[in-house]
């Protein structure tokens, strides 16, 4: 039963054909069974989950405020604060951190009656594209455990794909929801910047970070987004706009929809099998009556450079708080305050985090600020303008989510630049603050391929509709990994 979707399980729970305790026990049993191979979790909260499941069953029994998420086992990425439950960001520097509060999305999911089964693994502080940078352990792709699950929400994507939870939260700064969703054959959505509160999300790059769902199908994505979205006075960057009914967007009809195909993302640097799948997807949309338009976004060539200056610059500032004073690891070697800072950070941070602090500090330092950081902010404007132009003639844009299928563990970890280039299709969207979804659109060597659909700011509805129509008319999402 743990391989079913949230909307299927919601029906069974409401009809009392299944209890949340039974479902949660099935999920916990699956974790016991496959976790040795997958390592999707940092922490499994078995006792707490069963307590929440009993409360959900009580709620369903009394027919008291039953939501589509009531009694559904979910996983939370380990960079989102959970009160009294270890929140590590997969970093040694936070290996003992017990948040004194819940992130807003955790509060919202709990209020909806969801059952939190554990905290999922990530690249340390969400910096990475393979979950190999976790300071705890690497996560493995359920489709082929020799390949990476993508990152940084690799734990969440793998847990959903391996039915170690029904759905999961992820965070996306440069593709960290969408790329692992593509690699693991699940659906992942990065909402518009400001659509979901970031309160309680451990900051990486504050102008780019956004929380979103990872699920087994598009309907579940709409359900989970509904539960997460909305203004929050605790996050001054969350936007005070009404939240639409996302389930109403799930219409199997794209007749007349203007779909832009991004030329730059079907050329050099994209593998042949990925290109072939995306071309099949385009054909499918044409069959369904959509209007296909080729669009060019020339600034995309500069997106990776722009991102890898802006994101590390913001990170170097955000990560200044890990100094051994108020929480987390403190070096035992320190003799004075300054050496405590140096030693604590040397011992606590992994190599990728150090590398990004270095890039960011360099880009912000005197003499280089204008040449690197300010330059990147200006190119960010050009990227945003390219999208605005494209959306004058298109309702949504499509591209591959990632340039290839999941790569082998270790293949890119020695060469940071080649790892960074694997984010080419997802990064521009974060720079422009737009919403985008990734959903399965094919396979190559038994590894999933993801289709990315990008929308206008705050128009998650149109991308959900385009994704739903594709899903209803294809079978890709029904394939499951054999673990």
């Amino acid at each position, binding site marked *: 039963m743990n391989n079913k979707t949230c909307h299927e399980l919601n029906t069974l729970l409401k009809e009392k054909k299944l209890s949340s305790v039974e479902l949660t026990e099935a999920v916990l049993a699956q974790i016991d069974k496959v976790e040795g191979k997958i390592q999707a979790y940092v922490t499994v909260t078995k006792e707490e989950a069963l307590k929440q499941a009993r409360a959900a069953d009580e709620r369903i029994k009394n027919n008291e405020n039953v939501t589509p998420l009531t009694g559904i086992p979910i996983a939370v990425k380990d960079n989102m604060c959970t009160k*009294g439950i270890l929140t590590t960001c997969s970093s040694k520097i936070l290996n*003992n951190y*017990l948040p*004194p509060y819940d992130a807003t999305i955790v509060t919202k999911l709990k209020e909806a009656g969801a059952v939190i089964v554990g905290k999922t693994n990530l690249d340390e502080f969400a910096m990475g594209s393979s979950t190999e940078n976790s300071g705890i352990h690497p996560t493995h792709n359920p489709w082929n455990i020799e390949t990476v699950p993508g990152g940084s929400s690799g734990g969440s994507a793998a847990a959903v794909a391996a039915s170690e939870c029904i759905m999961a939260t992820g965070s996306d700064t440069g593709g960290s929801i969408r790329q692992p969703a593509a690699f693991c054959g699940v659906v992942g959505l990065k909402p*518009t*910047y*400001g659509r979901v509160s970031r309160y309680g999300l451990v900051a990486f790059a504050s*102008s780019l970070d956004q929380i979103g769902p990872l699920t087994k199908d598009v309907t579940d994505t709409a359900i989970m987004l509904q539960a997460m979205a909305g203004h929050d006075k605790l996050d*001054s*960057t969350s*936007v005070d706009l009404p939240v639409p009914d996302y389930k109403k967007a799930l219409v199997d009809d794209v007749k007349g929809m203007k779909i832009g195909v991004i030329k730059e993302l079907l050329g050099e640097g994209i593998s042949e099998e990925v290109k072939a799948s995306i071309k099949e997807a385009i054909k499918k949309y044409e069959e369904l009556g959509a209007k296909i338009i080729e669009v060019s976004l020339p*600034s995309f*060539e*500069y997106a*990776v*450079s*722009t991102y*890898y200056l802006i994101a590390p610059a913001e990170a*170097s500032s955000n990560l200044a708080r890990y*100094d*051994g*004073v*108020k*929480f*987390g690891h403190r070096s035992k070697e320190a*003799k*004075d*305050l300054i050496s*405590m800072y*140096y*030693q604590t*950070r*040397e011992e606590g*941070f992994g*190599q990728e985090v*150090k*590398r990004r*602090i*270095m*890039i960011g*500090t*360099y880009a912000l*330092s005197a003499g280089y600020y204008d040449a*690197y950081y*300010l*330059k*990147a*902010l*200006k*190119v*960010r*404007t*050009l990227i*945003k303008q390219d999208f605005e132009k494209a959306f004058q003639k298109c309702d949504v844009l499509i591209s591959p989510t990632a340039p290839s299928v999941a790569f082998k563990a270790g293949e890119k970890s020695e060469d*940071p*630049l080649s790892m*960074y280039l694997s984010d080419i299709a997802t990064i521009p969207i974060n720079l*422009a603050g*737009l919403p985008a979804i990734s959903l399965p659109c094919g396979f190559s060597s038994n590894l999933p391929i993801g289709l990315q659909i990008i929308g206008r*700011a705050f128009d998650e509805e149109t991308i959900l509709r385009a994704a739903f129509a594709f899903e209803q008319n294809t079978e890709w999402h029904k394939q499951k990994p054999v673990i």
Partner: protein
Amino acid sequence: MSVTRQDVEHVAKLARLGLTDKEKELFTGQLSNILDYAKNLNKLDTKDVPPTSHAIPMKNVLREDKVIPCANTQDIVANGPETEENMFKVPKIME
């Protein structure tokens, strides 16, 4: 090589980040590669382009400046590596 070992040491000092000798060597090469790659931005003329720090328009959110009780001081302080009576203890700052 655009980044020298001295640059790496200087930047690490700005970031109060301890690095091993091996890391200093590794980062000298890698930062050079990454920043050389980033120089492709110079192909674009951005003289008249305004910078974007947030993609979505942002404004300051203000509220009344008033003291409200903080209920979970104990939980907050409990995370401190070394504490004393609701305070964080740090090594000596001045002799």
